[in-house]
Every structure is written in C-alpha cells, then in structure tokens.
C-alpha cells in the first residue's frame, strides 16, 4: 500500500474529528469543506514527522486544531450566532425538539460563544482526551487547562440554560 493510500485510510477512519472541528470553527457549510481540505493538507505535509509510537488520532487533534485556529480566509459577512443556530436546526422537525440532533445543535451553538482556544479545550474534553493530552496539544500547562476548563464549563452551562429559557 502506498504512503498516500495508507494516509487516506487513516484520515478516513478518523474523519469525524475533522468534520467536528470544521463545524466548530466555521459557520458557513460551504467553507467547512475548504477547512477540511486545508486540515488534511497540513496533516499530510507533516505526516513524515508522525511517529507511529503515538496514536494517529492524538497527532490529528494537534495538527487539525492548530490549523483551524490559525487559518485565515477571505472574510464574508459573519453570520450571527443566532443565524447559525437557525441554519443548524432548521431541517429538524419541531416534534423532535428533544432529539439528539437538537441537543447537539445546542452544543455547537454554545461553541460559537467561546474563544478559539476555549473551543479547542472543550472540543478535546468532549472527545474524551485527558487533560495531559489537551495541554500537550495546545502547549499549555495542565493546571492552566484545568482552570480554563472550569471556566468554560460555567460559560457553557449559562449559554445552554439561556437557550432553553428562550425556547420556553
């Protein structure tokens, strides 16, 4: 199997990571495909430096998150967080209000209120990464990650409860 094919196989096994990161960092669905392409390219570019002793997914988190945080694009008019929430949920039927998809949309909506680094911390926590990996991926101390995460949790709690209050 060629190096390229083995890379694509590994990427596709973990494509959920790329799709989720793109959804967190970019509002416009069309732009997400471009961000996914850019992340794939950056991972491919540094693929030689990937040591198979470590998990491919751990390596993927680090490269993709840093690419998403630092990527620049020509700015379109930014969607407001409310608009993006509407787009995320408009295809979901009203009677499915408590469906998993609605709940997921609420989580993505809450992400929009966080800063770039906060998004990266919360995302890795939700993916089940330990604090030590989160700190290594972002170059922060473990204590720093813990403290930030405590704040993010409070922020998320208040955003979600506000969303639910508005719905009622």
């Amino acid at each position, binding site marked *: 199997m060629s190096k*390229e094919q083995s*890379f*694509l196989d590994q*990427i*596709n096994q973990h*494509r*959920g990571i*790329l*799709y*989720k990161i793109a959804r967190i960092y970019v509002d416009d669905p069309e*732009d997400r495909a*471009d*961000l*996914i*392409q*850019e992340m*794939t*390219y*950056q991972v*491919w*570019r*540094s693929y030689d430096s990937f040591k198979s002793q470590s998990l491919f997914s751990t390596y993927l988190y*680090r*490269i993709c998150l*840093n*690419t998403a*945080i*630092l*990527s*620049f*694009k*020509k700015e379109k008019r930014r969607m407001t967080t409310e608009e993006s929430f509407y787009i995320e949920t408009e295809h979901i039927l009203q009677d499915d209000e408590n469906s*998993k998809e609605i*709940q*997921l949309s*609420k*989580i993505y909506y809450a992400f929009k209120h966080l*800063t*770039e*680094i906060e998004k990266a911390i919360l995302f890795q*926590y*939700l*993916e*089940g990464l330990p604090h030590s990996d989160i700190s290594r991926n*972002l*170059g*922060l*101390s473990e*204590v*720093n990650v813990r*403290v*930030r995460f*405590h*704040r993010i*949790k409070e922020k*998320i*709690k208040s955003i*979600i409860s506000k969303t*639910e209050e508005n719905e009622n």
Partner: protein
Amino acid sequence: MKIDNIQEIWQSESNNQDQPILNQLSASEKFQNPIRKIKRNMIFEFVCYLLSFFLILKVVARNEAFLNEKLSNYYIVFAVQGMVCLAFFYQFYLFYKTISKVQLTTLKNLVIFRYELKIALHIYRIYCYLFAIIALPIILVILFQIGQISFEINNIDIVKWLVSIAPSGILITFFFIFLFTELYLYTSYGIYIKRVDKILKEMEDQVDENV
C-alpha cells in the same frame, strides 16, 4: 440538558454520515495559513522588485535628464541602490527559509514565527523607507525635466518656484510614502502579527491556578 450529559451526547454522534475524504492532498485556496500567505507575498514582491529594477533602468536611461555624463552618475547611484536592495533581499531570503521550516502546530512554533515576523517587518520598514529616499531624487529629476518645458513656455523662474514649493512638496511626498508603506506592511504582514498576537495573548492569559 445537563453539562455532564454533553460529553455523552457528543460522543454518540456518529461519523458514518460524513463524506469520506477523497484524494485531495493539496492546500485549500480559501483557507490559508499565515506562512503560506507570507511566502506568496514575498515571491510577488521579489518579482515586482526585479521588474521595476529593469523598468526604471530602461526608462531613466532614455530620459534626456540623464543623458551623456549624467547617465554615468545615475548608473553609479543605481548600482549602489541595487546592492543595498540585494543585501535586504538576502535577509528576506533567510526569513523565507526560516518560516518554510516552521509548522504552526505548537505554541513554541507560534512564538518563533511571531518573533521572526516581527524582525522581518522591521527590516521591511527600513527597506521601504530607504528605497523611497533613494528613489525620490530620481523621480524629482524626471519630474523636473518634464516640468521644465512648461516653465519655459510660461516664462516662470524655476528657482523661485522650487524654493516656494519644495518644502511642502517633500513633506507631502514623505507623508504619502509613510502612508503607503505602513498600509502595505500592515495588510501584507502586520495583520498576521495581530492575529498571532491575539492567539498568543489568549494562550498566555494568566489564570489563577489556585481555582
């Protein structure tokens, strides 16, 4: 929805519905990392410099103001300017090589990138002003040569005219050079420093570690 349930909901999201990633291992045109954009800017600048170098050389050599003995003086000035530019471009080449090796995947690399970019920006600033200061007399001579014809037609005392407008003319010229240089440096490089600064500031944000 409770905060503790979020992780459970999140992890239950299946990626089976996501489209497989195809064999597109090229960079995105829309999303670009700062290093790629800066490298592209630098190549563009170098091409522009080479084109303008030969263009000015040809245009000025044909101008009457520099004919005969004046032309050799001009070539000396131009050669000096060329050497100064080469020295600067060597520095830019070193910067280009350094950032080519950096991958923005860690905080350490981000700090290195910012440091290199800051130094390069200062070199660029000196280069732009120096280039403008050297180019200014050459441009003035050409303009003077063009203007001389109308002075002769309208019977105007050139020296009086020059003394009256030179200070304000030089000030206005320098103001525009300053404006153009700063605007160009900001849009080509400063904007990336600002962005990187914002991320670094957020990462280095002092948190009370006793919480």
